[in-house]
């Protein structure tokens, strides 16, 4: 039960105002082998800011003398960046670390072409300078990477020249580089007539690419727009123009940790296939992703999955061992791949498909399981999506790669598993990884917060999401590698069940709070978050949460009548967990305590009483917000606040329909300080609901 959703969003990214915040990088990219000055823009960047990044480079702070009208010093920081010899083309995270915390991550792209910045995107430039072919900005060099921005409903148009028969690749890098822009690319002739257009190109995700042959010598125009003409905070793009090699697909889509994996890039200028190797021999044991680059190419690398299961690209006699990862591809339309699995009655199997999630496949997969007689047992990927709380708006609903839990029926010793595309498509872009495990009940965890700054003597909050894969019971989260002096509370995801109205309860969110004792000190570090569940057969299942790497909000085209709620942009391929740093001493703290439990209606209902107390500076909120995580049929009532609003009470009442279980609760509020509002959250406390439940069924 969530009382104030909007407030929690404010809390999520960073709990303390003085920690650094990154809003922009200038430039967004760099040419390999060429030193450059990187200016980071944001807030609270002045206190000994330094860069942390996986980019092999030296970042030397430099002072840029202020110019009239320039932003305040703590809003920018500059670094001389010298790329090391082993730096490769790709996308790298840039984070700022100061004495009072760490910032969010923005991405910097390293390429092989000279970099220029669109005139309109230069500091103090007027907007809409190149919105028509009459005012197009001339770009004379090629190859080149042009860094531009799109401010809402605008077009950026560039004039280029080409010779008859000359081939050139035009590609926009945006979503792959951390921009919220969903770019569209057009090439126009001298009169403005469209010659080519691309939106989402193979192998480039939502980014477009046009491999263009100029029909005649002359001027042409290249236009970049957003697919929705939306307004984004991260609104940059990189328009790459040159005669470089690129591929549209890679196969296989992943490989086993510790091995050198042979891959083939194909499509585009890679043609029928360019053989290469992805080195997973020294990859981090926690990493789930690697990057695969087309040799001798200026193209961005592709995401490559990593696993610890036995991997194969061909099955002997069509038999699929368990466990295994089958790397395969639907080579042609209407193709259905079929595998046999030897089983015993009662076996519990989990089939998972990896395809679109990786960004290197267009497969909308359907998994179907048949018994030996050909009778369909179950399928996934072809059923209506559940009406869960994350998908209330029709046009914003999305599917994910399917998974299927199967319990082998009595008398069945062999089953067949098929993989096909929902729309029966096929071709080089329809690769997949079919993961087969003997695991009836499972779940995955993802961190909603890409990083955390914990105020000394205060509390910070993080949200963790669960993707249930057969396991509907409670999940308890823990953080095993806490710094000394830091405590963690909360982390309970209650069970899911079907209630008396035949409605499923969706419990896929946990809240955890980290509290640092006064005077504690620790260096920034990655925390691990683990989830633990006791399965129905008594075994304990542990799963590690994965971090989003970065979190970029993506807006819909808000001026229109119907707005698609967009999914935030993340970069799980950065393989980050939870970077945590110690922030400044908390200016205010909040606590909540249970003060009593009253039994109502002869034990059918309970009323839990709570007191809360705010300490510190600033103007307190009139009342606190209460979030009871994941429990239904609980009412929060009787809010009372002291005259000074520094303390108060409230109660939570259960009903006879309230599901028995262990639940988390916390309170939060906004305290007005001189320099703005500061979000304050209490450590999570727990309470137990016993008896009284009328839940009619559980899928456990």
């Amino acid at each position, binding site marked *: 039960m969530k009382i104030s959703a909007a407030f929690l969003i404010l809390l999520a990214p960073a709990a303390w105002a003085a920690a650094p915040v990154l809003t922009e990088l200038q430039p967004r990219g760099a040419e390999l082998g060429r030193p450059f000055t990187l200016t980071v823009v944001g807030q609270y960047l002045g206190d000994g800011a330094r860069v942390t990044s996986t980019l092999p480079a030296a970042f030397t702070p430099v002072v840029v003398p202020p110019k009239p009208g320039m932003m305040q010093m703590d809003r920018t920081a500059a670094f001389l960046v010298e790329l090391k010899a082993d730096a490769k083309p790709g996308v790298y995270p840039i984070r700022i670390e100061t004495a009072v915390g760490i910032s969010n991550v923005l991405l910097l792209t390293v390429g092989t072409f000279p970099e220029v910045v669109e005139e309109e995107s230069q500091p103090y430039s007027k907007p809409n300078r190149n919105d028509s072919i009459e005012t197009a900005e001339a770009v004379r060099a090629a190859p080149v990477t042009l860094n531009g921005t799109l401010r809402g*409903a605008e077009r950026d148009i560039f004039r280029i020249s080409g010779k008859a028969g000359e081939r050139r690749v035009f590609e926009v890098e945006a979503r792959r580089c951390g921009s919220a822009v969903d770019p569209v690319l057009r090439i126009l002739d001298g009169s403005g007539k469209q010659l080519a257009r691309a939106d989402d190109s193979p192998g480039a995700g939502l980014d477009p690419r046009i491999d263009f042959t100029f029909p005649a010598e002359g001027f042409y125009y290249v236009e970049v727009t957003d697919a929705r003409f939306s307004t984004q905070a991260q609104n940059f793009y990189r328009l790459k123009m040159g005669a470089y090699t690129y591929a549209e697909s890679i196969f296989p889509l992943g490989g086993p940790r510790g091995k050198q994996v042979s891959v083939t890039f194909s499509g585009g200028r890679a043609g029928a296939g360019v053989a290469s190797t992805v080195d997973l021999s020294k990859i981090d044991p926690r990493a789930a992703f690697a990057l695969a680059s087309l040799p001798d190419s200026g193209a961005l690398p592709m995401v490559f999955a990593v696993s610890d299961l036995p991997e194969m690209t061909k099955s002997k006699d069509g038999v699929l061992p368990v466990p295994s990862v089958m790397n395969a591809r639907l080579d042609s339309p209407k193709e259905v791949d079929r595998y046999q699995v030897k089983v015993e009655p009662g076996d519990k199997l989990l089939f998972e498909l990896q395809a679109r999630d990786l960004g290197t496949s267009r497969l909308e997969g359907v998994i179907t399981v048949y018994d030996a007689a050909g009778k369909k047992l179950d399928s996934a990927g072809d059923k209506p999506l559940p009406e869960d709380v994350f998908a209330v708006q029709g*046009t*914003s609903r*999305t599917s994910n790669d399917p998974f299927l839990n199967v319990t082998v029926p009595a008398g069945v010793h062999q089953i067949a598993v098929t993989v096909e595309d929902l729309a*029966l498509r096929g071709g080089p872009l329809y690769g997949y990884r079919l993961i087969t495990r003997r695991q009836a009940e499972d779940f995955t965890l993802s961190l909603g917060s890409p990083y955390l700054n914990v105020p000394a003597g205060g509390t910070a909050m993080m949200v963790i999401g669960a993707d249930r894969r057969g396991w509907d019971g409670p999940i308890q989260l823990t953080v095993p590698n806490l710094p000394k002096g830091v405590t963690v509370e909360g982390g309970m995801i209650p069970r899911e069940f079907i209630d008396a109205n035949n409605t499923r309860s969706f419990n896929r969110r946990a809240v955890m709070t980290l509290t640092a004792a006064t005077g504690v000190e620790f260096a920034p570090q990655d925390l691990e978050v683990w989830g633990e569940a006791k399965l129905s057969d008594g075994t304990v299942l542990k799963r590690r949460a994965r971090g989003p790497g970065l979190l970029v909000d993506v807006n819909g085209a808000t001026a*229109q009548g*119907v*707005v698609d709620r967009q*999914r935030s942009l993340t970069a799980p391929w950065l393989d980050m967990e939870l970077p945590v740093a110690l922030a400044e001493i908390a200016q205010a703290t909040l606590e909540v305590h249970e003060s009593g439990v009253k039994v109502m209606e002869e034990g059918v209902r309970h009323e839990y009483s709570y007191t809360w107390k705010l300490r510190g500076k600033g103007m307190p909120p009139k009342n606190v917000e209460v979030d009871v995580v994941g429990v239904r049929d609980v009412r929060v009532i009787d809010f009372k606040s002291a005259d000074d609003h520094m303390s108060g009470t409230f109660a939570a009442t259960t009903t006879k329909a309230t599901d028995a279980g262990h639940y988390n609760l916390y309170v939060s509020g906004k305290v007005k300080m001189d320099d703005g509002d500061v979000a304050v959250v209490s450590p999570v406390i727990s309470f137990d609901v016993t008896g009284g439940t009328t839940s009619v069924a559980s899928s456990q």
Partner: protein
Amino acid sequence: MLRLVSSSLLCAFALGAAEAPKVTFLRDVAPILNKVGCTSGPCHGAAKGKNGFKLSLRGYDPQFDYEALLYDLAGRRFNRADPARSLMLSKPTQQVAHGGGLRFEATSDYYKTIFSWIAQGVPYGDAATDTVKHLDVEPKEAILKQPGDVAPFHVKATYGDGTTRDVTREANVDSNIPNLASVEPDAKVKGERMGEATLLIRYQGNYATLPVTVLNPQPGFAWKQLPQHNYIDQLIDAKLQKLKIQPSAVVDDAGFLRRASLDLTGQLPGPEEIRGFIADPSKTKRAKVIDKLIASSAYVDHWTLKWGDLLQNSTKYLGEKGAYEFREWIRDSVASRKPYDKMVHELLTSYGSTDENPAANFYRVTRDPKPTMEKTTQVFLGVRMVCAQCHDHPFERWTQNQYYEMASFFSAVGIRPGYEVGEEIVYDQRADYDMKHPKDGRVMKPKFLVPASLDTTPPPTDQRRRLAYADWVTSKTNPFFAKSTVNRVWSYFFGRGIIDPVDDIRASNPPSNPALLDALTKDFIDHNFDIVYLMRTIANSRTYQAGIVTNEWNAKDIDNFSHAIPRRLSAEELMDALAQATGVRPVFPEAPPETRAEQLNDPHIGKDGFLDLFGRPQRESACECERRSDLSLPQALNLVNGKTISDAVADSSARIAKAVLSGRADRDLVEDLYLASLSRPPNAAELDKGLQYLKSDAGRAARAQDLLWALVNSKAFLYNF
């Protein structure tokens, strides 16, 4: 009294019962129920029946009606021992209270027929022999020499066993234009005014039509042959000559350029373009400018907008990206001059990701098989099937069974959210996709309305059945596809179709010039469904280029294209015309600068403003009627007082401000304003008045603004004529 009547009748009928002919429900009784109105919509044919008694609408389902009569009310509607005491006789004769009033007298033939039927044991009849197979009407065509003349007609039904019967009295007859040809009670048609109309004759689910021509009685008509540019003019002239209508001469050059520019591109010509066109002495300049307009990007935008309306491209249904991508797909189809059959085939067979294959957005609007079928027949065939969902079509031969057989072509289409926000996957379901009849749950196999060719192989019943539908729709031998398309396109150039409304083709809504429609259809098919070719043919005809000024012979004609009929500019045309006239583009915050109204992809952009006031459709329906072309008081008030016009006229970067700042001479300024707004130079009187007005003391700029404001508020600006 009741006893008295029934007893006397009983005696009368009992005497003749032995030699009475066999009476069946199918052949004898059902037609009476239909004729006297029992099965009509306001009575027992209503969706829920009337007073607990439900019959099928207009008797489209005789089996249902028979069973309702027999078994409802525990069978108490008949008294077989004493037929006269049957409710089925006592109610319509009002011997007992009847909400529907008196339907026939107790002494009538209808009474006797029903009495005999009850006396014979209420037999249903044999569907093979007692069902009407076809209707014939005599004469085949009624030609009335002048308004006021009448002509009789007779209707003959032929049954399954080959026997015939005169059913003139029981047949239902309607005129499609009652104020042109009306139906008299004694089976006669009366001419009301000059022109052509059609009588629709219905009897027991069968239909026949009777074309009626009312000639012009005015003496002194002498046909004056005008130049004929192509076969359109020949076929139009043939019809007009027959009706004694003299067509108008062609419009002048400026008028032609304005009309062609608006019709082909939705934009007004610019002042320099008009000056150049008028000055051009070439005899082929009209054909050349038609080609030039068709080659312009404005042409592509204009027809992309039209197709966006019909295909209901809207963020409401397709999401933000879907609406943009679908527009691009439509635009590319128009720009690449994709043959129309190919475009429609691609839409109907589309599948996969709506982001990767934007044509698949077609299925996201209606989503379910029934509305999808209704949309495809209405948009691509000009046939409205919606009535047949609940009952057989009242004015056409389409049955409820056919409705579900046609909808069955789309029953396997599945739509599922895709990976990206706003993306959906259109696919063909593998199982559980049968279309079932709502009455009895029987599986309705896909079946075409009519065969498109001699090949009568049944369509496939697997999940890819819609492929066969796409082939059928776009076949050169489909009787509706090409015909409805040329008719629709024709309407865009004349304001009305040869069949009108354009998306309601049926026997009772015949073409005003069948020969012309057939010729256009054949030409369109012969040129591989090339819309551009069709438009060029139409635009080059003298008929299209006819002036608005009428003569004594065609002043009253509104059906036969003998002169141009003014059409109000559409909302988008009007807004773009204002921009052209004033020199100031409106700003849509949701679209890039310099976007024209005709380039908007979504009806939600600029919602509740000028565009909606002037009838922009919200794309909630595939009906052409959703775009309004009326002129209302709020519109008039907006034109007179609204900010859209007043701000544009007075804008600091507007045409007038620029002209004044550049020191343009008064004469040139007045000419510019006329050319930019009315697309023609002022005549001498207008020029003189304009010059006088500018010379006042109030300030030249203010006076010029007044003049432009007056021009854009004139009918000559608001209409395409």
